[in-house]
């Protein structure tokens, strides 16, 4: 009985993981990819951990799985926020189909502080040049 519940939880979690990874490949720009991937993969992995906890309900496995799930729920949105903020500050533009950009209008009216890098035109050379400290 508990095996069946664990299998159902793990199967649903796997499905959400795969949706997140498909979103990571299909969506058009960094911010949309962060959204899809973070939401889906966080909940999917937490469901897999919950399935593990249900499966090993008697041992130390379930306690550690619960600790890991809490840790993922706490830190994964923080990582997404940090990446999105870093991407905006390093000059990645929004997708052309975006309808509004209040952050750019109100916080960075003169554009991001770093040099603007066109996503399509970026090559290995510009990546290497971007690492130099800008004065």
């Amino acid at each position, binding site marked *: 009985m508990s095996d069946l519940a664990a299998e159902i939880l793990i199967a649903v979690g796997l499905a959400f993981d795969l949706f997140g990874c498909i979103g990571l490949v299909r969506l058009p720009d960094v911010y949309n990819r962060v959204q899809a991937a973070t939401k889906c993969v966080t909940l999917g992995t937490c469901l897999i951990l919950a399935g593990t906890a249900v499966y090993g309900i008697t041992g130390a496995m379930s306690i550690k799985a619960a600790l890991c799930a809490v*840790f993922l729920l*706490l*830190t994964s949105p*923080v990582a997404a*926020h*940090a990446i999105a*903020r870093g991407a905006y500050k390093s000059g990645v533009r929004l997708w052309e189909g975006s309808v509004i950009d209040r952050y750019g209008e109100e916080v960075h009216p003169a554009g991001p502080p770093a040099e603007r890098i066109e996503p399509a035109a970026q090559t290995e050379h510009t990546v290497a040049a971007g690492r130099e*400290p800008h004065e």
Partner: protein
Amino acid sequence: MQGMSLIVKNITRVVAGFIILFGAYIVLYGHVTPGGGFAGGVILAGGLALVVLAFGEEFARNVLTHDVARLADSMGALLFLLVAVLGFMGGVFFTNFLPLGDVGALLSAGTIPIANLGIGIKVGAGLFGVFLALAAFRRATSGGSAAHGRLP
């Protein structure tokens, strides 16, 4: 080194204790579970590096400076050597001189936990020192105000 945004700082407040505690757990239970001194030391250094990344200079200046990292590094090495030399008193380098205890308990396996502790302290302090040194080195090469290669 400035800190990151409010969200990262606050979650670091909640999580940093758990990370360092988990590193200590891996070090101290290295003889019972997988892991050991090196892996636990890496986690310890990672936790300290996370705190410095999130809070910036205010933590590195107040609590953990280069000197503290250097001291802990030497202390770990000395602890490890002490275990080895005390075994040498019994005849052979690294001979066990403590009772073996029950299999699976924390107080077992003779001198292995103490050697693990030494390795953990050494690796953690060493890697954290490398992190601080790299940060200071970038400051020195990028022509910042503190160009003497050390964190203030």
